[in-house]
């Protein structure tokens, strides 16, 4: 019977093209607008590292003077002293300190001019913690961290640019005039958002070179990202070990809730110890947030993206209400036909199904239109001057979602009209026809 209902739906569309087009437009525009904004929202709020986001924790400590900020929240980053102390204590399953930076690279390849590359100065566990995939080689060693080894892990794109290949472990990269040995080449690593360091932009560029933190300090490489200092530093070096500045991100991996609780206790004890030693002035107030909690806290998803989504969903609702009205008109105008069909043996259920199939067909057509409009909408978003513009791409789940939303919406809109249609009293229609 389904094919019969499809055939009847097509005949019905042909019978009243204008009404059908109106409904397809209503569903298409509603779905198109909703899917455009939902796609953007989904991209912005997606878990950037789903396989480990519940085990990776961001550490915040409160080293600032008692006076000043009283929001109750510690600063977003930690001091170098705290980071190095926590790193040495190694109380987590894995831990890494880091900051963003950049480095001048002098290619050996003829015809290639020196250029700056986005870099990350970090410690060896970074790669394992953030599930970075190596195409060749691997991370540097803890010994390299301790002894400021002249080693580097580079991104695939940089390897291809410098050497025309990815299997370049052992080769040398001239970095700020210092030869650095390539120990690993990684595949594209660009978590979205750039959760492990939100100070360099929520949706930053792909980093090209990863260098031991200690080496970056030895070579005095330029760092990037925010820095908050609350006291002048004697030697004028804000990145020194004892500088009164927060500028380091510190992550720790803990594979169970009990370990997380124990680590939080450790941070409280550490803070108390620092206060006792006179380094901290405020009461211990450490924070330990996993990836999604950290992104929520930092409100990474822009408010306007949320508002746009709600507006678009509201628009879809208005479109659906219009579609309900149009379908009601369409179906009830066919009361006499429904009466005849009922007299000839159609049950209420048959009529209900027939009308719902017709509504679903409108949904499929609306879905196709909505898909085109969503594609167009995302194209427009990609041409906006926003940091996340490039993320606005329609992927397979959203493509399926567009169709699903269109069909479900039209079915929902068709429920009441189909119900009213199947309740038509045949006796009345047959006499009045």
């Amino acid at each position, binding site marked *: *019977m389904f094919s*019969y209902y499809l055939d009847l739906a097509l*005949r*019905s569309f042909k*019978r009243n093209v204008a009404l059908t087009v109106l409904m397809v437009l209503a569903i298409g525009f509603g779905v198109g607008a909703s899917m455009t904004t939902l796609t953007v929202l989904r991209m912005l709020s997606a878990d950037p590292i789903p396989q480990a986001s519940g085990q990776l924790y961001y550490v915040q400590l409160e080293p600032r003077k008692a006076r000043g900020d009283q929001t109750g929240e510690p600063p977003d980053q930690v001091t170098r002293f705290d980071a190095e102390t926590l790193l040495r204590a190694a109380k987590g399953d894995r831990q890494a300190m880091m900051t963003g930076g950049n480095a001048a690279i002098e290619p050996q390849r003829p015809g290639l001019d020196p250029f700056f590359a986005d870099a990350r100065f970090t410690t060896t566990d970074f790669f394992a913690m953030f599930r970075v995939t190596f195409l060749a080689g691997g991370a540097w060693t803890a010994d390299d961290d301790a002894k400021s080894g002249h080693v580097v892990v580079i991104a695939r794109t940089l390897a291809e640019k410098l050497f025309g290949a990815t299997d370049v472990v052992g080769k040398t990269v001239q970095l700020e005039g210092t030869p650095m040995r390539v120990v690993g080449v990684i595949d594209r690593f660009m978590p979205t958002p750039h959760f492990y360091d939100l100070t360099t932009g929520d949706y930053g560029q792909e980093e090209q070179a990863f260098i031991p933190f200690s080496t970056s300090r030895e070579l005095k490489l330029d760092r990037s990202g925010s820095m908050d200092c609350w006291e002048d530093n004697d030697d004028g070096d804000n990145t020194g070990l004892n500088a009164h500045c927060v500028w380091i991100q510190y992550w720790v991996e803990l594979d169970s809730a009990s370990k997380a609780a124990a680590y939080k206790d450790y941070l409280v004890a550490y803070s108390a110890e620092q206060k006792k030693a006179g380094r901290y002035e405020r009461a211990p107030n450490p924070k330990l947030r996993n990836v999604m909690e950290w992104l929520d806290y930092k409100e990474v998803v822009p408010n306007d993206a949320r508002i746009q989504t709600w507006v678009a969903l509201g628009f879809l609702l208005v479109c659906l209400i219009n579609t309900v009205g149009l379908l009601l008109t369409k179906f009830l105008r066919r009361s*006499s*036909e429904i*009466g*005849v*069909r*009922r*007299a*000839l*043996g*159609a*049950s*209420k*259920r*048959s009529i209900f199904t027939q009308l719902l199939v017709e509504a679903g067909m409108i949904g499929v057509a609306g879905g196709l239109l909505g898909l085109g409009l969503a594609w167009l909408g995302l194209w427009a978003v990609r041409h906006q001057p926003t940091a996340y513009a490039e993320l606005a791409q329609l992927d397979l789940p959203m493509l399926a979602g567009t169709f699903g939303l269109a069909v479900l919406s039209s079915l929902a809109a068709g429920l009441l009209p189909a119900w009213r249609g199947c309740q038509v*009293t*045949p*006796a009345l229609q*047959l*006499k009045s*026809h």
Partner: protein
Amino acid sequence: MLKMKQVSKVFRTAMVETHALRDLDLQVREGEFVAVTGPSGSGKTTFLNIAGLLEELTSGEYLLDGVDIKSLNDHARSKLRNEKLGFVFQSFNLIPDLDLFDNVDVPLRYRGFSRGERKKRIEGALERVGLASRMRHDPAELSGGQQQRVAIARAIAGDPKLLLADEPTGNLDSQMAREVMQLLEDLNAQGTVVVIVTHDPEIAARAQRNVHIVDGVAADLERGPSLVRPTKSADQPAA
């Protein structure tokens, strides 16, 4: 074939209660051709709607081919209507968007016949009413008489045991009316029970038996007008 016992139908609104049928007793046997007559508003059409399972009765008992219809849900009623009954209406009630073939196909679709079986039955039914050559024409291309013949083809394509006709010649001229009546008589001769509602004495005279309904009560004229129960007249829907 059709047995109604003390069937009543009351239409209720907030203000008015209308008794369309009052304790109606009627039996139609296999092979019969029955004409139901009566003045406008007497309850003829209500009787036909109840007989055709298009309306529910308020009280009483109705057996259709031995099946007590009171116990049936909508699905079972629809199935019974599809399998046992054929309808012919005064205004033909063909679906204008469908050609003759597809119009006759409608009851067969709900019956669940295979494609081949449906085609055979549709062609056979249109052949019987003399319109096989026009099966891909739209209803609007036919005369009133031809449209009524298509409606008859649609009614008989599923081989119903009972054909219910509501003023089938009401919209036709006398020549076409005679043709349609001849068709119904032929069908009856082949074994289909025919119940026809009419207020045309000429048409009624061609039936084997007349049932007269007045004020919702039936009297079998073969058994004499004395069986008509004296009842108080009530406002009733047009029959």
